[in-house]
């Protein structure tokens, strides 16, 4: 709030009404609903609810399918984050170094940001086509016969490749803008002190980029958790069967398709706790980031 503000009484209320009513209706109410129904078991015909305490949660813990998808989500997020950060960092460092064509490279490397995840899934279906997909043909030369939507690990591999393709641009944009905000004086000083580009990268550039990296870590995990839904759904063509799915997909399957409101709500709450933990982690990192600069 500004020191010099206006003293009007009704106007600010009026200005806040749209935002607050939308938030209450479509944020607090559903969040509360999820929390509440996670302790209830709903009658399949919608006739009534029974309070079951933590049973919906223990049911998750005991479900082999849920635990398998939980593990898949963890390592899927990890692999996607690691590779998309690594590739993006390499490309950003190079794009920052070249003198000619820098602008063209930047455009070519970032436009995929705007591609919708289902389109990434659509492309994955083509490049991993069983009969003639270019990547299927490529890997078959090494004796790897990729069969997506039939083999668990092959499907996971296709999902990972599509997610990395989609996520590199975001990381690239942030790394490049992080690199470009390193002051000229620091770069020149480093250039004088250190002939080797390799050690200059690890001793000067990398530590200065570390805060951006921490920040991106959370962004990438959130991406892998939530935004890959459309890509996964397109690859599986609405029919997951035994194939790997993320926890968000599981919420959708159980709650929307399976009508298991209690179980799905408990899953939602688990995800909420996960996101809250990530956010707290991020805030701590942001604090540390202020230390750095």
């Amino acid at each position, binding site marked *: 709030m500004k*020191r*010099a*503000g206006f003293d*009007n009484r009704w*106007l600010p209320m009026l200005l*806040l009404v*749209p935002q607050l009513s*939308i938030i209450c*209706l*479509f*944020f607090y109410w559903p*969040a509360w*609903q*999820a929390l509440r129904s996670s302790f209830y078991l709903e009658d399949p015909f919608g006739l009534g609810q029974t309070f079951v305490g933590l049973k919906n949660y223990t049911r998750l813990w005991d479900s082999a399918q849920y635990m398998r998808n939980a593990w898949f989500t963890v390592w899927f997020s990890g692999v996607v984050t690691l590779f998309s950060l690594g590739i993006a*960092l*390499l*490309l950003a*460092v*190079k794009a920052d*170094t*070249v*003198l000619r064509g820098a602008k063209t*490279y*930047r455009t*070519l*490397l*970032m*436009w995929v940001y*705007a*591609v919708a995840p289902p*389109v990434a899934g*659509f*492309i994955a*279906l083509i*490049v991993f*086509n069983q009969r*003639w997909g270019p990547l299927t043909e490529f890997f078959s030369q090494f004796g790897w016969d990729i069969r997506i939507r039939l083999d668990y690990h092959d499907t996971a591999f296709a999902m990972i490749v599509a997610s990395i*393709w989609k996520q590199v641009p975001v990381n690239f*944009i942030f790394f490049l803008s992080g690199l470009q905000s390193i002051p000229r004086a620091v770069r020149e000083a480093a*250039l004088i002190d250190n002939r080797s*580009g*390799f050690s200059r*990268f*690890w001793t000067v550039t990398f530590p200065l980029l570390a805060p951006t990296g921490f920040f991106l870590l959370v962004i990438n995990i*959130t991406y892998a958790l*939530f935004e890959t839904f*459309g890509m996964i*759904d*397109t690859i599986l*063509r609405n029919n997951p069967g035994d194939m790997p799915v993320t926890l*968000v997909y599981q*919420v959708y399957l159980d709650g*929307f398709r399976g009508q298991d*409101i209690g179980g799905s*709500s408990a899953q*939602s709450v688990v*995800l909420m706790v996960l*996101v*809250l933990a990530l956010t707290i982690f991020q805030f701590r990192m*942001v604090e540390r980031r202020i230390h750095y600069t």
Partner: protein
Amino acid sequence: MADITQAAPVTRPKIHRAPFRWGAVVNHAVLIAGALFMIAPLLMLVQMSTIPDAEILRSGPSLEIGDRFGANVDKALFGSMSYSGETTGLNMFRNSMILGLGFAVGKIVIAMMAAYAIVYFRLRFATLAFWLIFTTLLLPLEVRIVPSYEITQKLGLLNTWTGLIVPLIASATATFFFRQFFMSVPEELVEAAKIDGAGPVKFFVDILVPLSRTMIAAMFIIMFVYGWNQYLWPTMVSTEEGKFTLVQGIKQITQSLEGGHIPEFGRSNILAVLAVIPPVAVVVFFQRWFVKGLTDSDK
């Protein structure tokens, strides 16, 4: 990460008119490889749409350019979709536009109003409003998707534009961003405006909004892309085919790929490209604002 340790040693100091730069060659090679990795899939989609479907079915994408492109574009835009015949590519494009623009405009208008109220007024419940609004930054729509659907259903908003767009607006990313920006506007501006006799409405419309032009543009680009690319929520809320967006239609498009006779690769690829063009064009043409908006707003 492994790639970096291998490639980094060849980076040479950035010196003008260096005698011979192997480093520069390697840099360009890496960047070209990266650019190809990014753009090859899109080129492949376009190539496939120039070839007769029967040929694609046999041998897949190639380097050959055929003559079916125009016919496929025509079919994709105006032909009724094979799975029901109720909608066309053009109609889905229009729906995507409504979602993208409606979401971006709605979000920006509501966010600016709320941020203005929080920053420029002495408000009794200011702290409460602030926390109510900014807690929403913590949880994405996906974690409360099923109850959100139930509420939208209860309100009778399924298959309406309101039901599609308004629940997506229920998060405060833009509000937070505008609040940050308004805080950075010098205090003297309000004081001067007040001395000149400007009321709160006049100050907002004539001074603050024009001053936020760049920020509005940056937010608009990011929000348009976000809205256009929505998938899960439209899939749940818009079940009538006349209301399908392009991004949401992708799944139906792939399912039609599996149809009885020859799958229509050409048409479905054109539709996928069509789903990509508007958001990509916005990001590429307004690159400077977009990058600024993205890197500023998320921090």
